[in-house]
């Protein structure tokens, strides 16, 4: 495996291998000295053409703990603002000889395009409405650690499915691992024929949440004009917010997950977000473990 573009093209064994490898890194992240020399001398560029706190920091922490040299590029402050095309920027970065580039971009398929332009490993950190593979992997790692497996689990995925690359990657992954995904959200936020992805579509969140092992919330993405898809925030939260009452319908030991950043009081109630069943911050910690595993497996040159 040279690139990580999405979950769609991974098989069950590859996913499990990433999760199992992440266990080693979880141990390192518990140590007093959280650094190993594995990627010493490797150069990694983090190119985030969209805002990000969690993913960008998480990748950078992962890279630094593996001893790689990292460089961050944001669109503001880059030559893209002077009118350089993405392809030209990519060629120029390639000329500096990086070993990997982590890319986030608002256009779906950008990471794929870069694999055709550049020689280095490309890691998708979220492209448009397409995929966000490392998010799905860290979600899977969290579920695997907490539930011991995936087979037969019911996962409720609620909110703006249409704009959500997190939803797509998670649906691919959970289906491959044998979990069952039920989705619910405003009709305007469900893609056409989404059931063809192998999910059950419920009109109301309560049916999706009923007896669920995992309740995964998605963010209302106002920067992607989500706000045009529902009348107003109060109406959205009234029907689709994860409240303590809604959560009661899930299994007693159900986990509450959210990829962040969360809109408190819109898609998730404060009480739930900070409650005992919430593993939202655990997801963030696990993100570093999983991203270290991905970098290790990609840059070690396995399958070359």
């Amino acid at each position, binding site marked *: 495996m040279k690139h990580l573009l999405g979950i769609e093209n991974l098989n069950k064994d590859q996913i499990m291998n990433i999760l199992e*490898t992440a*266990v*080693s890194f*979880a*141990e*390192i992240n518990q*140590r*007093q*000295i959280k*650094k*190993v*020399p*594995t*990627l*010493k*001398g*490797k150069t990694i560029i983090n190119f985030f053409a969209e805002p990000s706190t969690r993913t960008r920091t998480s990748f950078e922490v992962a890279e630094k703990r*593996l001893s790689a040299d990292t460089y961050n590029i944001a669109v503001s402050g880059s030559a893209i603002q002077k009118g350089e095309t993405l392809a030209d920027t990519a060629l120029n970065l390639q000329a500096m000889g990086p070993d990997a580039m982590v890319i986030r971009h608002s256009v779906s398929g950008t990471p794929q395009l870069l694999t055709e332009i550049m020689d280095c490993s490309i890691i998708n950190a979220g492209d448009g409405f397409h995929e966000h593979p490392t998010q799905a992997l860290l979600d899977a790692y969290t579920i695997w650690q907490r539930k011991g497996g995936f087979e037969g689990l019911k996962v409720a995925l609620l909110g703006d499915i249409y704009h959500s690359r997190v939803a797509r990657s998670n649906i691919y992954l959970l289906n491959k691992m044998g979990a069952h995904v039920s989705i619910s959200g405003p009709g305007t936020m469900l893609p056409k024929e989404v059931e063809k992805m192998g999910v059950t579509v419920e009109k109301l969140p309560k049916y999706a949440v009923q007896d669920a092992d995992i309740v995964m919330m998605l963010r209302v993405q106002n920067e992607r004009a989500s706000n045009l898809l529902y009348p107003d925030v109060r109406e959205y939260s009234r029907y689709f917010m994860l409240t303590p009452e809604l959560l009661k319908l899930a299994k007693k030991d159900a986990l509450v997950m959210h990829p962040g950043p969360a809109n408190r009081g819109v898609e998730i109630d404060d009480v739930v977000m900070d409650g005992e069943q919430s593993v939202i911050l655990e997801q963030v910690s696990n993100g570093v473990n999983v991203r270290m595993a991905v970098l*290790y*497996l990609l*840059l*070690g*040159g*396995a*399958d*070359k």
Partner: protein
Amino acid sequence: MKRESINVRKVLLNETEMSKIIDRMVYEMIEHLSLLKNVAIVGIRTRGVILAERLIKKIEEKENVRLATGTIDIALYRDDFCKGLSSPKTGPSVLNFDPEEYHIILVDDVMYTGRTVRAAIEAVMDYGRPKSIKFVSLIDRGLRELPIHPDIVGKVIETSPEDKVAVFFKETDGEDKVVLG
């Protein structure tokens, strides 16, 4: 090294011979240990861990002591990681003691170039500064590439770089033996 892929040319040690050698190593270790307090025995993944478990069990029975133990994975400390080999499978390291307070005895099944031991020393050092580090190996097949020497060895054999030396353990491979392939 996959055990089933080895074309066995010669059995170097059978079960009885291996058992006698391990017993002798236990006596040598006890002799060593009697000089030291705060000793931890740490196996190098994966077959060093099995050998370490056997040594620990025998030492604890004979001496009626409890030893600190651990496991170290060297995959992330290899010096050939950037040489384009595939990423070796990793597992977590476990050191459930404060290394600063202990004399650490590293255990592996076969000693060869010395590069594994170097990596293991670096891995241990990342947890802290142990009082000392010693190295114990069942087989020393020579051909060192680094100035590293074992403290206790079960058996020394002469090999060439093309040879493969593989230790089989009941726990993982169904039988105890050492073969040349």
